[in-house]
Structure formats: structure tokens, C-alpha cells
């Protein structure tokens, strides 16, 4: 049975109930944020083309599912095909390079044809949000306005369930979603080589820039490619988010975003 909605207010005697589980330091530094962290205990979902499990640059993948539609019904089944493009493996590899001990789960939303891929993408995200992952890496966007409302609802429910949705910004001048929503972290590319260099953008909608040019990433068949695109910058932020969350389990997406802001290269992050 559904819980009745609470009244969204804070009586005087309830202030203690929402006390934070741990205090914040006077200065949030990178060392406080993720020093010594490995990603252990954090579950990261790669919503993409599948992931090649066992690739030396990826390692173990805890679970792989594929999403498809059978008329109106959504089918979620174990993924036996693996990566149908190479991109999901690349993203998983970037996350793994930051968080060697995080749990990786692949949700494949590609391969069943382009027509109908919109609903598959949407249902893949819906499934991922329901699984309460800590981080969902989403190098995907749609230009269809009819999906925007549903994506917005999903992004918000992820935000309230403590799932950080990290989405690629578009590097073409088109309206697309979900990266434009305030409840996700949107990521574009910078040209520097340092994987830990990332910048806060004071003029959104794109909130962060991470390494996205000439990035060495795992690809199909155990290979390594050198790749460029916002879709490779995105897992850099997902990887950092996994590190921070493994050290500070209590952080909400709002707090996590604040930590990333405070530790960004152009804010105070080099300290």
C-alpha cells in the first residue's frame, strides 16, 4: 500500500529529526571529497549500447540487461549479445578507471532498431531509476518533445531517490533532453589531458566540462580506441561521483553536485 503523502513542513520539534548524519568541513577539498576512495559499495549503471564484460579496461560487470518492447509490453531480459556498438564499453572503462571497486551494471537500450528506440530508451531509464542505482551514466539524448515530459518526471524521481543521473550535453545547437533538466548533472567536453581536471560552468544549462577529447577508452574485442565527444566526458563525472559517494554514502544529489562544484578545477579543486 502506498504511504500517505506527508505535509511538507518542518515543525519546531522536528528539526532534530533531519540533522545531517555527518558534518561538512569548513573547506571542502578533493582529499576530503574522495581521498582514499575506491568506489567500493557504489552501484553505477551504464545506460548505453551494452558493455563487453571482462574487457581488461572494464573488468567485472555485475549485471547486464537488455530492454526491448513487445508491442506495449516492456521486456527486461539478461543481455546475451553484449555491446552492439562499443560505446557502452568505453563509458564503463572510464568509470572503472576512476572507481576500480565500484559495481557496474549495463542496461542496453540499443540494437532493436532505430524505430521504437525512443520508448526503449525511456523504459531503460525507468527500469534503472527503479533499481536505485547510486549513479546512472547516460550518454544519450532525444530531440522529441513528446518524450521530454516523461524524461523530466524520471529525472526528478531519480533525484528524489538519491540516484545521480549524469547526462551528456549536446555539442550541436539543438534542443534535446534529458541533459537540460536541473535534476541531472550535464557534462560537456574540455580539451585538456588530465582526467581529474573538470570545470564548473557558471552559465548553464551545461553545468560541468570534463575531459572529452582524445580519451583512450576500451572498445570491442579487447581493443583500445582514442575517442572524442561529450559522451566520453560524461563518464568522467560519473566516475568521480562514484568515488565521492563511496566515501560519503549519505550525500543526496544536491549535496553531491555541491561537492563537485566545490572541488572543480576552476573553483577550489586543486587544493
Amino acid at each position, binding site marked *: 500500500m502506498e504511504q500517505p503523502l506527508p505535509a511538507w513542513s518542518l515543525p519546531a520539534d522536528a528539526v532534530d529529526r533531519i540533522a545531517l548524519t555527518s558534518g561538512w568541513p569548513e573547506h571542502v577539498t578533493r582529499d576530503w571529497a574522495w581521498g582514499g576512495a575506491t568506489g567500493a559499495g557504489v552501484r553505477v549503471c551504464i545506460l548505453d*549500447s551494452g558493455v563487453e564484460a571482462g574487457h581488461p579496461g572494464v573488468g567485472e560487470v555485475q549485471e547486464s540487461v537488455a530492454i526491448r518492447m513487445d508491442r506495449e509490453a516492456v521486456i527486461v531480459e539478461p543481455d546475451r549479445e553484449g555491446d552492439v556498438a562499443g560505446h557502452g564499453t568505453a563509458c564503463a572503462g572510464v568509470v572503472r578507471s576512476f572507481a576500480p571497486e565500484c559495481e557496474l551494471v549495463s542496461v542496453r537500450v540499443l540494437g532493436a*532498431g532505430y524505430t521504437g528506440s525512443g520508448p526503449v530508451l525511456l523504459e531503460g531509464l525507468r527500469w534503472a531509476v527503479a533499481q536505485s542505482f547510486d549513479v546512472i551514466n547516460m550518454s544519450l539524448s532525444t*530531440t522529441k*518533445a513528446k518524450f521530454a515530459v516523461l524524461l523530466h518526471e524520471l529525472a526528478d524521481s531519480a533525484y528524489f531517490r538519491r540516484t545521480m543521473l549524469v547526462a551528456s550535453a*549536446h555539442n*550541436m545547437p539543438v534542443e534535446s533532453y534529458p541533459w537540460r533538466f536541473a535534476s541531472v548533472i550535464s557534462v560537456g*567536453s574540455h580539451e585538456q589531458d588530465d582526467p581529474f581536471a573538470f570545470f564548473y560552468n557558471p552559465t548553464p544549462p551545461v553545468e560541468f566540462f570534463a575531459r572529452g577529447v582524445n580519451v583512450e577508452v576500451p572498445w570491442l574485442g579487447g581493443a*583500445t*580506441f582514442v575517442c572524442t*565527444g561529450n559522451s566520453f566526458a560524461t563518464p568522467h563525472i560519473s566516475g568521480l561521483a562514484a568515488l565521492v559517494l563511496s566515501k560519503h554514502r549519505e550525500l543526496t544529489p544536491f549535496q553531491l553536485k555541491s561537492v563537485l562544484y566545490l572541488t572543480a578545477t576552476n573553483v577550489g579543486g586543486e587544493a
Partner: protein
Amino acid sequence: MSDELRAAVAAGVLGAEEQYRALLQSIVGVARAIFGAKASSIFLLDEPSDELVFEAVAGEGAGTLVGRRFPSSTGVAGWVLVTHQPLVVENVAEDPRFGREAAESTGFVPKALMAVPLLYEERALGVLEVLDRPQDEPFRLAEMELLGQFANQAAIALDLLQRARRARATLEGEGELAALARLAAALEGNEAGLQLVAALEDVLNQSD
């Protein structure tokens, strides 16, 4: 009137398809030249079959690949189409699976590939690829922006091509528009027929 009618039909439909194809060909030609690349191609999404089809090719594969089809949601081109995100992959020759897939969709095994979605209004119409730009310089974001601009141009051309094809299919079909087109063709040079149409127009105007 007959000449004007014929010109209107021709401009709207019949000659347009060839002109738009020439425009697409010119876009891949310029893209290839500007990037100093070995080849450039435009794929159109064929919705009824849910496949990507080579629509224009410059450089390697020109003349042999147009019309060839492959799946719409696998491989690099499929990923770009579904996710609406551009992608650049380099140093790709070492992977046999990629090589095989790339050869099927390009006619040769490239060392590097840039792919960008062709987005028009809310729709993804296809994919533009540029293969094997010179590898002596690392890739820069400025090139990604340039690629995006070519994609915008190609998307507009591709939209025009699709419109022309739909219009032609409509005119060649069995519907009311097709009947009108046949009527327009039959009226060409037929003075009595044109007088009849003019009289009909008068009647319709009066009944408004």
C-alpha cells in the same frame, strides 16, 4: 498557364530529387576536402525497413556504396543515430570486429571515423560520417563544431530530398493528388481544356 503549371510541378517535385541528391553529394565532397579526409558519406534512415542507407559518398567507396543498407541501431552509425550524439573514434584498425563492421558500412577499413547525427526539427534523419582525416594532428573541439555545421546543412538537404520523394510517391500513386497531377499533365497545350478549368474556377469562386 500550361508552362507555369508544368514549371511549378517540376520545381516542386520532379527535378527536385536530383537537385537535392546533388546537394548532398556536394556536402560530402566539401566535408571530405575540408577535413582532408579519405572519404565522407551520408546515410539516410529508411523508416519502413528501419535501416540506414548510403545516400551520398565522396572518396573511397563513391560509385559503389550508394543504396547499400545496414542495421539502424548497431555499430558506430547506429549508436550516433539512436543517441543523437556525435562521436569520433581513432586508432581503430587494431580491432578485427570493428574492422569488419566498418568495412561493411564503408567499403574499406578506416583508421579513424567521425560520425554525427543529422537532426532536423525533432527528427533524426540519418548520419554523416567523415573517414580517415590525417592522423598527424590530434583531434580538436573546433573540428567537432565544424562537423556539426556540416551536419546541419546535410540535415536540411536530406529533409528536402525526403519531401521530394514523398511528393513524387504521392503523385505517382492512386490518390486524389495523383489524379490531379494526371489532369495537369493532360491539360498541357490543350486550349479547350484550359478554358474549361478557367470556367470551373469562376464557378468555384462564385460559390464561395
